[in-house]
């Protein structure tokens, strides 16, 4: 009998929650009286997170012309909401700490997520530069539902992988057939559980069907296209090497010139390698979750 979505939702409740600092940053952002000093004080309480944040903004991938040394500087240069998104992308990497299976590799899924994040960020730079960080995070998280399925209903998830390959089905169709639901829905439930902004939850929920999004149609469309570009370049999530079909209205909605695809793909390749090196080093350098808990 296939697992019920409700059961999976209960499991999601037992996933590691976001670090307290991120929740507090979220609360502060809802308070109009919040200053850069308040925010930086909260972020600085988590020294490890602060170090990772500074490493990310000072990386070649981010490309600031000079070194940024303090959290206050990051807040002033990037803005409060962008910093929350950056913190989120730094902590999300911990989720991908999971042992490999022969049929499915969380590290490959991580590479695909990093690639989609870079592609979504590059598209945003052209189409809506103010949302670049948000779209980067949305790219990182778009397939997080697969990870939840792999963690909690592994047997059924691996059956989806096998079914997609045996029947030559797009992954989402195989999920619908085996489970009765798919990773985009599961990912958006996790986003709600984490109290992430509604636009982010919607982008995750509709990255395969951007036409259905209500408040984040453009964001969902950008991640939809970013996902397709990564599959096309062979930066697939593993267990699923097929390029998903393009939503018929997606291209018109973005009004992205066809001639810009070639330079975009070229830049994506270069930046992906940089982001992969940065994020994967972060993944490998982190103590394992069990070790971290033992040290608490």
């Amino acid at each position: 009998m296939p697992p019920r979505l409700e059961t999976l939702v209960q499991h999601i409740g037992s996933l590691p929650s976001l670090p307290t600092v991120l929740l507090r940053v979220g609360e502060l952002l809802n308070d109009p009286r919040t200053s850069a000093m308040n925010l930086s004080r909260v972020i600085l309480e988590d020294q490890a997170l602060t170090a990772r944040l500074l490493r990310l903004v000072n990386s070649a991938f981010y490309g600031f012309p000079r070194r940024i040394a303090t959290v206050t500087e990051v807040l002033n240069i990037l803005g409060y909401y962008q910093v929350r998104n950056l913190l989120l992308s730094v902590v999300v990497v911990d989720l991908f700490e999971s042992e490999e299976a022969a049929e499915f590799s969380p590290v490959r899924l991580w590479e695909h997520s990093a690639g989609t994040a870079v592609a979504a960020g590059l598209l945003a730079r052209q189409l809506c530069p103010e949302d670049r960080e948000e779209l980067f995070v949305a790219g990182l998280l778009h397939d997080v539902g697969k990870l939840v399925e792999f963690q909690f209903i592994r047997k059924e998830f691996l059956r989806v992988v096998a079914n997609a390959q045996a029947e030559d089905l797009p992954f989402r169709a195989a999920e619908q057939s085996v489970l009765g639901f798919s990773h985009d829905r599961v990912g958006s439930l996790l986003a709600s559980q984490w109290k992430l902004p509604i636009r982010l939850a919607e982008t995750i929920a509709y990255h395969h069907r951007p036409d259905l999004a209500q408040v984040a149609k453009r964001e969902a469309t950008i991640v939809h296209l970013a996902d397709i570009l990564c599959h096309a370049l062979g930066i697939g999530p593993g267990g699923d090497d097929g390029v998903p079909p393009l939503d018929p209205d997606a291209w018109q909605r973005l009004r992205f010139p066809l001639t810009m695809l070639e330079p975009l793909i070229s830049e994506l390749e270069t930046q992906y390698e940089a982001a992969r090196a940065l994020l994967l080093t972060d993944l490998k350098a982190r103590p394992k979750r069990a070790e971290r808990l033992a040290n608490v």
Partner: protein
Amino acid sequence: MARITMENLVSGMRLNKPICNPHGVLLLKAGEILTEKHLKILKSWGFREADVVLERDGEAGGASEVALSPEVVNAAQGAISHRFRHARADSDPVMAEILRVVAVRVAERQSRLPGAAAHSDGSGLLRGDIQAAQENRQCPRD
């Protein structure tokens, strides 16, 4: 510049380095534009590759297909087309363009870094594609 294997060299390419025979006698100077006759001679001497200037060299990152033979691009496209099986690349112009651009990227990398051995350290995007494209060329389908 790139070292291009004999089967990928075409007339019109410009040599980046001189070519000498095993006795050190200069056959072709650097800067020489390759002709069909040159290619025949090089093959008869048993040369396996030559260092040529790709059109993209010296340009500000501009992609170019000039140095790529259609055969190489087609082989690359053949090698990655299975990935597009659910994506309607034959009827959707956007997907067709994505397929074309990725195939050109694969072919360009193949030309710049000829031989699978160049990737034996496991690094580099599109490594599998390049190998598949090479296999595609070695075993042309009817």
